[in-house]
């Protein structure tokens, strides 16, 4: 009797609008037209959440339990991707206020600090994210190496990862020149001097990179185009392949569990017999 009364109260519009304010919205035609999956509170609903969302296709519907804990991956690859996204967004904002021309580039940097809303703040975000990304990508590589996650069938993904590391370094290096201050100019001068020692090509390699005998307006334009278009496009391409391969090859930690189980079954026949007996 009492429970019947309770249920009746819970079913009233007033109760639901106070304690489940999203319900009415979720029943609306607009919501149902956007979100096509059932509520994710059943196994079917959770699987459908992945199937029906373009952005979630990057994830498998289910992941090994070990991957949910942070120890298996330390989340370093994911953090690198987040940093790349932060760099992409903050970099887009900076592009509105920057012209890659000498000496305008430097004057624009000054204006960015003095006159642009959040200019200095967004530049800070861009710079620290870039440094941190180099560091995190390095750490990610170390983690993958020490946990042996590059082994078959993931050999090719390791190679893609090495490519991404190089691209990260180049992205950071090309961005370093853009402020066109003394720090940028001399760091790039020192860095590109090395290119003069490339076998056979010699100083020609350096000239192609800089567009002239030394760091100047042509180098600034080349580094700008590489930094905002060529290298990010390559990173997006390789990163897509990299993540797609993780998705297809599966998480290394799951294989390790399989391998360990295989080892056990091979080394202790008694356990196997017991398993069979239980079955």
């Amino acid at each position, binding site marked *: 009797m009492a429970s019947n009364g309770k249920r009746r109260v819970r079913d009233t519009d007033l109760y639901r609008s106070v304690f489940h304010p999203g319900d009415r919205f979720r029943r609306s035609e607009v919501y149902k037209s956007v979100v096509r999956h059932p509520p994710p509170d059943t196994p079917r609903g959770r699987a459908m959440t992945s199937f029906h969302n373009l952005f979630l296709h990057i994830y498998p519907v289910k992941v*090994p339990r070990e991957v949910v804990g942070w120890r298996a991956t330390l*989340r370093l690859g994911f953090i690198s991707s987040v940093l790349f996204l932060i760099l992409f967004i903050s970099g887009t904002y900076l592009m509105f206020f920057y012209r890659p021309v*000498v000496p305008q580039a430097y004057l624009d940097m000054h204006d960015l600090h003095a006159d642009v809303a959040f200019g200095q*703040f967004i530049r800070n975000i861009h710079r620290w994210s870039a440094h941190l990304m180099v560091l995190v990508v390095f750490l990610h590589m170390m983690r993958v190496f020490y946990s042996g996650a590059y*082994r078959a069938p993931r050999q090719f993904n*390791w190679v893609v990862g090495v490519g991404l590391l190089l691209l990260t370094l180049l992205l950071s290096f090309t961005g370093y020149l853009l402020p066109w201050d003394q720090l940028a100019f001399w*760091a790039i001068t020192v860095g590109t001097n090395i290119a003069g020692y490339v076998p056979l090509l010699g100083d020609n390699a350096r000239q192609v990179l800089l567009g002239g005998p030394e760091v100047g307006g042509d180098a600034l334009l080349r580094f700008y185009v590489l930094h905002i278009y060529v290298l990010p496009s390559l990173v997006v391409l390789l990163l897509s392949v990299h993540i797609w391969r993780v998705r297809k090859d599966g998480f290394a930690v799951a294989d390790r569990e399989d391998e360990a189980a295989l080892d056990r079954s091979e080394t202790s026949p008694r356990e196997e017999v017991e398993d069979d007996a239980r079955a």
Partner: protein
Amino acid sequence: MPEPEEEPRYRLLGVVPREIEVRKKQEPDDAVFTWPHFLIRHAVVAGATVAVIFALAIAFDAPLQSMADANRTPPVAKAPWYFAGLQELLAHVHPMVAGILVPGAAVAWLALIPYLDRSRGWRIRDRKLLVTLFTALAVAALVLTLVGSLFRGPEWSWSWPWQHLYLEL
């Protein structure tokens, strides 16, 4: 009159290696749904990363020195910190070796690691030689980078970082 029953016929479909059988048996039912278990953790890590970057951006300003001038050489011209190790190496050996051969060979070796690794297991004790080589390379790179970025002053002379730090990020 009842029809004679047909003889049952059997066909061999294939012989399956034992590992596949075992793997199938262990198909991980220990897996959990990506939504919500994995995604929520990713959301938290993404939020924490943004928070760290915001904190850094509020606490420290990105440097902006005077306008670039090819005629005004600074006391020490340093490459960005991640190339400071190479710059340190350049001070000791021929530029062709330090700038091209060493980094080129290191990157080529790094890329080939999975194909060179012929050990049986993934554990460190199964791949002692490779782990030793990799660790040696990583430590060498770390030491060179630290020395180049923190311990070098005017004209690449030795300089203690607590006396004067010639490092700009």
